[in-house]
Every structure is written in C-alpha cells, then in structure tokens.
C-alpha cells in the first residue's frame, strides 16, 4: 500500500512545496513594494544599481537585438516568399521585435546577467553575516538592498527594451537592404507607417514587468540563500531559472491581456 501511494505522496509534496514557495515570493514582493514609498530612501544605492542594471546591460541587450533583427528578416523573407509575400519583411520585423522579441529576449538576457549577479551578491552577504550586520546597524536590508534593485530594474528595462527595439529594427533593415535588395527609404517608411504607438508601449510595459521579476527573483533567492559557497551557487542558479520562466509565463499572460480584445 505504501509503495503504491508513494508516487502520489511525492506529487503532493512537490505541489505543496511549490504553492508555499509561491506564497512566500508573493509576500516578499508585496513587502518590497510597500517599502518603495516609505522612508528612509537610499538614492545613492538606487543610482548605483541603475548604473549596474541598466547602463551596463546595454551592450548585451543591443547585440541580442541586432542579431535577432537580422535573422528575423532572413526568416520572414524566406517564409514570405513561399506565398509571394516577401514585401512584408519591414512590417513583420517591426512588430515581431517591438511586441515580442525585444522585451522577451532583452528580459531573458538581463535575467542571465542581473538576476545572477544580484543573487550572488546578496547570497554572499547573507552567508558572511553582512545582512545580520546591516540589521544591527539599524538598516532594513529590504529597504537598503531589495528596493533600490527592484526600482532600478523596473525603470531601466523599458529603456533597454526601447533601445533594443531600435537596434533590432536596424538589424532587420541592415540585412534587408544589403542582402535582400530592399530600398532603404521605402523600408524605413513602411516600418514607421505600420507601427502603432500601442505596439511599442505594450512592449515597454512588458519590459517593466520583466525587470521587476528579474530583480525580485535575484533578491529573493539571495536573501534565502543556503549556507556556504554551495548555497550561494544554488541561489544563483535558482534566481536565473525562476526569473526566466516567470518572464516567459508573464509574457504569455500579458500578450493575452493586451492583444485579445
């Protein structure tokens, strides 16, 4: 009987574990958000994080967008030519980058870079008692460490996405005009005429949500890091994996919300 039931027990256990993890993350997120508007504020920390999360992610996000835009143009051209629709390359590249690939790939790249860095830094602080030291120095770690990071990521990701959008479209433009024989002026005109404001803003909103998730996962896993180097390593991995999955899931939900009317 016990043998028969053990798989069921295992499923039950992991479901319970997952639900309680979701609960803990939600409480942590609510707590962090509630501290954003309450003093004391740490503007220097915030600016520092803005530099690290936003500015230093530009090359990664830019290169990702550039290559993706180029590859997308080639694929759409090849696919479109099957039913004589090669001409839609500028429009589809624009909408694909701005609505989907810009925010999602940008978010995933930042997850790899930033969630890992945050989790490793905070996790190390935790295992070396620096978090305890912060508390004894009358500083709330949630305010001092988490809030600046969440704020910086949430505000800088839309900007990164906007830059990524422009570079991605430029990548498509470059490939289309040099390899696929598109007219330069016509390509740009088609792109600009076709895109609507909401296409762009929806992508930027996605970016903000993804930025929040990335910093939240980095901080949460760092703060709950296990002991020793191994604990920090595991926290880092968990931060990147959970941030990536949450980004993809949130992307689906937001797309459903924004574009099925």
């Amino acid at each position, binding site marked *: 009987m016990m043998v028969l039931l053990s798989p069921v027990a295992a499923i039950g256990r992991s479901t319970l574990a997952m639900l309680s993890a979701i609960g803990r993350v939600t409480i942590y997120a609510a707590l962090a958000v509630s501290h954003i508007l309450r003093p004391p504020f740490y503007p220097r920390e915030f600016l520092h994080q803005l530099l690290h999360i936003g500015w230093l992610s530009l090359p990664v996000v830019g290169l990702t967008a550039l290559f993706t835009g180029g590859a997308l143009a080639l694929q759409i051209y090849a696919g479109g030519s099957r039913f004589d629709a090669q001409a839609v390359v500028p429009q589809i590249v624009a909408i694909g980058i701005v609505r989907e690939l810009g925010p999602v790939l940008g978010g995933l790249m930042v997850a790899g870079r930033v969630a890992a860095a945050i989790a490793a830094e905070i996790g190390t602080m935790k295992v070396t*008692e620096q978090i305890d030291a912060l508390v004894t120095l009358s500083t709330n770690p949630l305010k001092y460490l988490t809030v600046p990071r969440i704020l910086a990521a949430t505000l800088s990701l839309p900007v990164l996405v906007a830059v990524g959008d422009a570079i991605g479209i430029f990548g498509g433009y470059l490939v289309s005009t040099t390899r696929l024989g598109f007219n330069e002026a016509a390509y740009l005109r088609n792109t600009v005429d076709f895109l609507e404001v909401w296409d762009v803003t929806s992508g930027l909103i996605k970016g903000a949500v993804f930025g929040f998730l990335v910093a939240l996962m980095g901080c949460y896993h760092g703060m709950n890091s296990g002991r020793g180097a191994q604990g920090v390593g595991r926290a880092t991995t968990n931060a990147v994996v959970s941030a990536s999955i949450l980004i993809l899931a949130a992307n689906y939900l937001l797309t459903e919300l924004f574009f099925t009317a």
Partner: protein
Amino acid sequence: MIALSDVHKAFGPKQVLRGLTLDVAKGESCVIIGGSGTGKSVCLKCILGLVIPDTGQITVDGQDVTKGDRDAFLARFGMLFQGGALFDSMPVWQNVAFRLLRGRQKRPKLEAREIAIEKLRRVGLTPDVADLYPSELSGGMQKRVGLARAIAAEPEIIFFDEPTTGLDPIMSGVINDLIREIVTEMGATALTITHDMSSVRAIADKVAMLHNGKIRWHGPVAEIDTADDPYLRQFVTGSAVGPIAAVR
C-alpha cells in the same frame, strides 16, 4: 539590564540552547566562555533579535526585545561579528562610519570620516587603511575594523564576538585595554565572547560559562581560579582530561 530567562533554541534536530538564563547589569562587562559550538554566538544573536528563540524570554531594560521600536532598540547596540561581517562593497572608512552616514545618527560626510579615522586609530590602524577595501586587509585587520565599526556610534551596549582571535599578543593587549576603557570611561555595558583566558582576566567584571546549552557557572572574575566547578576548572586550565568531552 539584559536578562535572558530559560531561552531554548534548536536548529532542526540540533538543540543548541537548553534553558539559558543570564543577567547582565548596566555598566558591567560580562564575558561568556565555553567550548566551541556551544551556542555563544547564537546567544548574542538571540538578544539582538537576529535569531528568534524557540521559547524563553529576553528583555533589555525590562522591554521584550522582539516587541517595540526595533530601530530605536538597535540604535543602542554595537556588535562585532565573529567573522567581521564587513561590507565588501565599500571602503573601510565607510564601513566604520556606516551608522554615521545614514539614518537617525547621520552627520556630514567629512565629520563621519574623521570619526571613522579616529576609531580606526583606537583599534591600532593607521589612517591610510581608511580608503582600502576590506578584501585588501589581513584577517586580524578586518577584525579590528569590525571592532571600530561596533564602537563608532558610541553605543550603550556592545557585543564583542571573539575580539582578539587572530590577533598577535600585543594587539590583543591593545584591544583588551580598549574594551576595558569603553566600559569604565563611557559607562557602556559589554558582553564579550572569548576563548582567550588572558582577555577574560583583562576585561571581565563577571564571567559566565556556557556548557550544554546552559550557564554552567557564573561569578566574578576574581573567583575563576578558586571556584571548584570541575567544568570551569578544566576550561580555565585548558586540560584535555575532565568532564568536558574533547570530541564535540
């Protein structure tokens, strides 16, 4: 002033504190001794609310440490962590002046820096250390920076977790004198953990020996050589034979 009564704390199946009761009076320097791994550091963390005891009560000035205004409560304390726990993202002087650069004790940057350098001098470090990062210092220097940080805001109650481990005998002497001075001149209350019997004699008014999760013996420092508790005897003489097992 600080009163622990019947405090229990377990980590998973491992029972660390089993009914710890201890009183420290205002302006007193109390030293906790005891074998490695007996829960001395955990005891300090319980008082600060960093570790929540399973049962038992801890009060400071009659006020339960888990209730009330945590900020005001913690502002009265300074703590030297066993591992130093310096912030490795900022230079030494900002570590020392951490409290003076933000929050309710905030003051101008230059003034905070001057205070930091003065505190560094008191723990035997030269001003050129101020702009280095903690990772550039030796273990003993890190310990002393941690000590400078603990005393920087002149708290009323100071905890030192092994202030002299990793220091040479001369530096140990300097630090022992400093702790004694802080208690007698500033009237601070100090709770120190140490394994170093010469430190015990130099800084303690009162000694408490922790064994098996409880206070095994406590009394004035003058009595540690004459008391006939076999556990204390073994600890003070540093003998491998006695009631305290050598393998723990």
